[in-house]
């Protein structure tokens, strides 16, 4: 258990409304990630953070913004939700594995439906 929680776990919203998803970790890891998972696409990186106030874009960042004001919290915001953002969103953290790369551990996910 990597100590990752996501909130809310489920959310239904309407097109055009703002939505914020929260990822909280208890292990003080430096790297945090937001992915979305859709049928036929696998997991795709939206944004990631490599420290407090340090963030960068991933593969599918259009329509999303992120913020990290504390090590333990990474927020994903949809400024104006669209139906194409209906998806399951996963947060992940990196934990040094001792090899040449870090292993990512995932949270339980948030299912978002935009009507």
């Amino acid at each position, binding site marked *: 258990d990597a100590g*990752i929680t996501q909130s809310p776990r489920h959310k239904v919203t309407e097109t055009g409304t703002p939505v914020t998803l929260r990822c909280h970790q208890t292990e003080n890891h430096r*790297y945090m*990630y937001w992915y979305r998972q859709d049928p*036929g*696409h*696998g*997991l*795709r*990186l939206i944004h*990631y953070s*490599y420290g407090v106030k340090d963030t*960068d874009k*991933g593969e599918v960042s259009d329509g999303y913004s992120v913020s990290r004001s504390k090590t333990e919290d990474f927020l994903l915001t949809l400024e104006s939700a669209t139906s194409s953002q209906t998806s399951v969103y*996963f947060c992940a953290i*990196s934990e040094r*594995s001792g*090899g*040449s*790369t*870090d*292993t*990512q*551990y*995932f*949270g*339980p*996910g948030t299912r978002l439906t935009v009507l």
Partner: protein
Amino acid sequence: EDQVTQSPEALRLQEGESSSLNCSYTVSGLRGLFWYRQDPGKGPEFLFTLYSAGEEKEKERLKATLTKKESFLHITAPKPEDSATYLCAVQPRSYNTDKLIFGTGTRLQVFP
């Protein structure tokens, strides 16, 4: 372009019937290849990391192997509790962070 392809998309096995899942990849240098298990409604659960061709890792009924172009996840004498979607991901050496490229997964069903 870096990409990962998993096959088959779905696999149905009888309990005890061994088989293999395939993950083929094209990347500009490989830092690591990862296998995850995902149960319905849950987040991916880490299984293995492989770093170089020839490497093998085992955990209970699962064994992961790696070549320069693909990885296999061998399942020996599977049980119904092994039913899940298995995800493969690669980390290209060209990335300066731990970003991953995922395949679309293999959905495994094991029947008693």
